[in-house]
């Protein structure tokens, strides 16, 4: 039968007013349901008729999911808080300016006015084969179209590939991993809280998902503990256009410094693997070292150990090395 990549097909739309109602709908419809937040990841899937859920649960009417509040130990951001709300929130700016900066680096002003933090971390990969409806591993097939020598993979993995070489495209995700955020997930009436680094799931665990969210799950909020509040957190995103573009590589590095030496550090990169990658080898190599150019250089060199670039993305190796180096050498921009 012929294929057409246009016009959203028939689907049943639910617009619950409370999280409980949303959860009930998700339980009822299970894998037939699609959770709709800002719609930026969703709508082109639908319009291309590549993803065709029977039921769509639009969270846009659930105000409680949009709250950003300070807690006894940090800040809790509702999953439906818009990126622009994260950018402008005074508490986030004061305690975790790198998160506000990363949110501001995502997408375009128009998209940030609609797109949500939950959508930003939960979004699917931008692998152009997968998104165009090619029946690859991630789409339930038994091949990766992006890795053969004739394939175009400039924007794909240099790390962590497992059959699939697609990358995670989120800008806020690496910051949240660096800040040791936790994801609050509900399923029916039960709630679980998982660390950010376990929230993102690689193809070796489940090749058809990017996160730990399973059918029936609802991401409620993101908790950021105060551990890294006020610390030196560097974020930088490299993208091809300033207008609207996903990261070629981004980096988030959190450092606690005592007397000029690195007391604690978390280095996370994204856009290089199917999940944000915490570079623990880099962290071990530089912990206790002086915060200086030499340490930065060392961090960069360690960061690229074990990389496996594809035909067209060898430049990402150099780019990641330089970004990791900068994240330690340079002052955070955060503006």
């Amino acid at each position, binding site marked *: 039968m012929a294929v057409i990549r246009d016009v959203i097909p028939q689907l049943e739309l639910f617009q619950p007013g409370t999280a409980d109602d949303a959860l009930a709908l998700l339980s009822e419809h299970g894998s037939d349901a699609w959770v709709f937040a800002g719609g930026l990841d969703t709508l082109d899937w639908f319009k291309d008729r590549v993803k065709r859920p029977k039921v769509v649960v639009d969270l846009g009417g659930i105000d409680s999911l949009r709250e950003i509040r300070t807690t006894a130990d940090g800040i809790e951001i509702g999953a439906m808080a818009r990126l622009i709300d994260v950018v402008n929130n005074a508490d986030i700016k004061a305690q975790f300016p790198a998160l506000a900066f990363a949110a501001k680096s995502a997408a375009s002003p128009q998209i940030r006015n609609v797109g949500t933090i939950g959508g930003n971390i939960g979004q699917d990969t931008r692998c*152009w084969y997968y998104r165009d409806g090619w029946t690859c591993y991630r789409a339930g097939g038994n091949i990766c179209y992006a890795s053969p020598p004739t394939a175009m993979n*400039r924007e794909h993995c240099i790390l962590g590939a497992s059959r699939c070489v697609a990358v995670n495209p989120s800008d806020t995700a690496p910051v949240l991993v660096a800040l040791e955020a936790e994801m609050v997930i509900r399923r029916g009436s039960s709630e679980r809280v998982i660390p950010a680094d376990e929230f993102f799931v690689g193809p070796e665990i489940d090749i058809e998902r990017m996160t730990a969210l399973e059918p029936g799950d609802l991401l409620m909020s993101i908790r950021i503990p105060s551990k890294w509040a006020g610390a030196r957190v560097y974020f930088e995103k490299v993208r091809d256009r300033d207008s609207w573009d996903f990261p070629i590589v981004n980096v988030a590095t959190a450092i606690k410094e005592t007397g000029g030496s690195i007391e604690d550090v978390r280095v996370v990169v994204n856009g290089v693997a199917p999940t944000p990658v915490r570079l623990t080898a880099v962290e071990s190599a530089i912990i206790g070292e002086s915060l200086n150019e030499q340490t930065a250089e060392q961090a960069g060199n360690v960061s690229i150990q074990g990389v496996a670039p594809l035909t067209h993305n*060898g430049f990402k190796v150099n780019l990641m090395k330089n970004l990791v180096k900068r994240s330690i050498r340079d002052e955070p921009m955060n503006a």
Partner: protein
Amino acid sequence: MADYKLLGKNYQLPDLYAKVTGRSKYAEDHRAEGMVFAKLLVSPMPHARVVSIDTSAAERLPGVEGILLPSDLPEEAEAPNESALTMEPKYEGEPILAVAAVTEQIAADAIELINIQFEPLPFVLDPLDSLKPGGPNGRLDGNTSLGRELGEIKWTEADMAGLSPGEIPMDGATAAEWAYGDLEAGFADADVIIEEHSYNQSTSHQPLESRTTMAYWEGGKLYIYPSVQSTARSVGPMARWAGIEPSNVVLINEFTGGGFGGKISGYVHAQIPILLSKNIGKPVMMRISRREENAIGRARPGVQARIKLGMRSDGKITALDIHCVGDQGPYGRSGDAMNVAGIGSLCYQPDAVRTRGTNVFTNTPPRGPQRGPGGVQSMTMLEPMIQRAAKQLGLDQVDVRRLNAPEGQAKFGAPGRDGEQGHVSSAFAKEAIDKGAELFNWTERKAISGRRNGSKVTGIGTCLSAYAAGASGVDGLFVIRPDGRMYIQSGIGNLGTGSTFDMMRAAAEGMDMPWEKCEVAWGNSALHLPWSCSQGGSSTTHAHTRANWAAVEDATRKMKAIAAQDLGGSADSYEVSGERVHRRGNRSQGLSFAQVAQRAVDLGGEFDGHELPEDINGMTTASATALAGQGLMGVAKDNYEEGGRRMSFAAGFAEVEVDIETGDIKVKDYAVGSDAGTIMHPKTYSAQLFGGAIQGFSVALSSKWVYDRRWGLLVAKRFYNNRPPGILDVPHEQPMKWGNADLPDPFNPLGAKGIGEAAQGAGSGAVVNAIADALDSLGDGFGDFYRSPVTRDMILTMLEQAPTGHDRLMAHV
């Protein structure tokens, strides 16, 4: 510069309110009673034969109104031209059939019910693959046009011996060739010879408005609401696709969201709603998605070339030898590749030029002219070689451009049958360079070349760009009515440049009419519009200032004749000013425009359009006949002398900052000096210079296609991965600057030429040179990319001396 009341002054375009309030109607905003929607079934393969189509299930779907198959077209286009639908799709996304239904959703659902079987055929994505011995052809009937015929060009094993991948045999076979001067002597005279391979990518036109079209039939007439660049010039093609006379076409298109050459006078796919609506007897709206626009919406032909350039120690370019390969797509005949040398021969006036080339059919979207066709490729490809030669000789880049720049009625391009080259009507290129250099402060700014700020390196670059700047021989038409107002007819088309109004100001200026008392009719062929030039190729400024001036002279002559008849004396003793025709030096003895308009109606004949000039186009005759009797008519064909081909010039100057740790390139500043004669409207003029420059930045920095080579499919289909620049990619720390030589073209009564085309090459050439300049500071030859767009992967792999994954000429990476 003459002292004009209207020309050269900013004013508010008459369509502004509609645009900023969202009331302007673009093609898809139109509705008609009983309207249904069409959707396309397009090819999923780069080249295939449709073996079978079964539409029975689709036809049974409630709400389906009709299906249009290739066999429903009146005739198949003659090779190598394209048809609206085809049983042998030659690129991914080529339309095969269309379904009309009461909703778009039903139409799309119906397409999914169609059982269609394909037989895959050989395909080629990269022209060089087709030229290699034994390489595949993009069409079953050949890989290139040999004159009027289709045929095949293949290089031999001997040609390829000793060449690395991505290299072109300089003397390998080509489909076309032209030359002038003594090439051997030119190279012998050179002190530096640069020989390089260079690649300019294919780029989609990407107008914000796709080519959506609505059509219906009523009383034997076709009413069509397309998204086209030209109004008058699109009527004929629509009539042809409908199989009717142009007089039976009503074309309504008041607003068009850009075209850049991709919608100049319609598009063959308009035939789909035209025929569907005829077959089913209902209006049909065919909305074109961005994805479809990427496929059917035209693109600039990529060019792969081997170029040899000789420069004397004083900077004079002595010889230019090019073997160019054009990426033609599967249809048509493009002039882009061979025009690389054509435009180069104008900008740099080399003593000798030879160009040999082949346009190769590929299974990628059809190509069409895009803003400065061939010229942009010329600037992007030749300029870095000129910069390299000048650097080797230790010469100032501006001095070299100036030394080689054309003057007066400079010759250029391929010699004609008589062996003589054509020439331009005027060239004030040196003055344009001077203006740009002054705005950019080139002399002092040279000091920042190679400046380091941490990981960032600054580079500056300049480029002289030229392109066509005007047509001629079209008609002007207006009526001054007894209400004292002037009604000016504009058939140009309103794609956002403002020229459909700006050029009508020439008529108002000529009649000394306040603009507030002028009404412009545009965007609807039923409004009796005159024969106009295409709204493309920067044609309208020159053409319609001439045509409207001819109409002004016609109206002035008629007014004087009426005054002499009514008030006595000779016609020559009268003049026109201040909305009156009156005795020279005595305003009180005369007639107001309102009075003379009434007298024209009373007198009839030629005065009110009942008698018309014989040399005007039939379309103008029909329109003027419809307007006859309403007042005093100015109507005439432009018969002014032509002093050569109208070409304008833009000298771009760019400052870029390259971050050598990330490969980021930021355009920090841009200035442009121009030569396009008299400026009609500074605001729209500068919009052309800046908009063109930004499109040039796109060529230099970001816009490209990416094709999977195994499957022959485009993977970068979306706006964001096709990467045209947005407003955030434009210099914003300081405003871009522009200036003009302000020297009138002697072969236009107002001195005006167009500017839109030349503007783009100025942007691309200046930026690629600025990038090379920045990277040269890291080591000799570090900036030698000779490939666009210059992306961070090229920079970072070059700095690490790592492999890139592709050779210099490989297409669509």
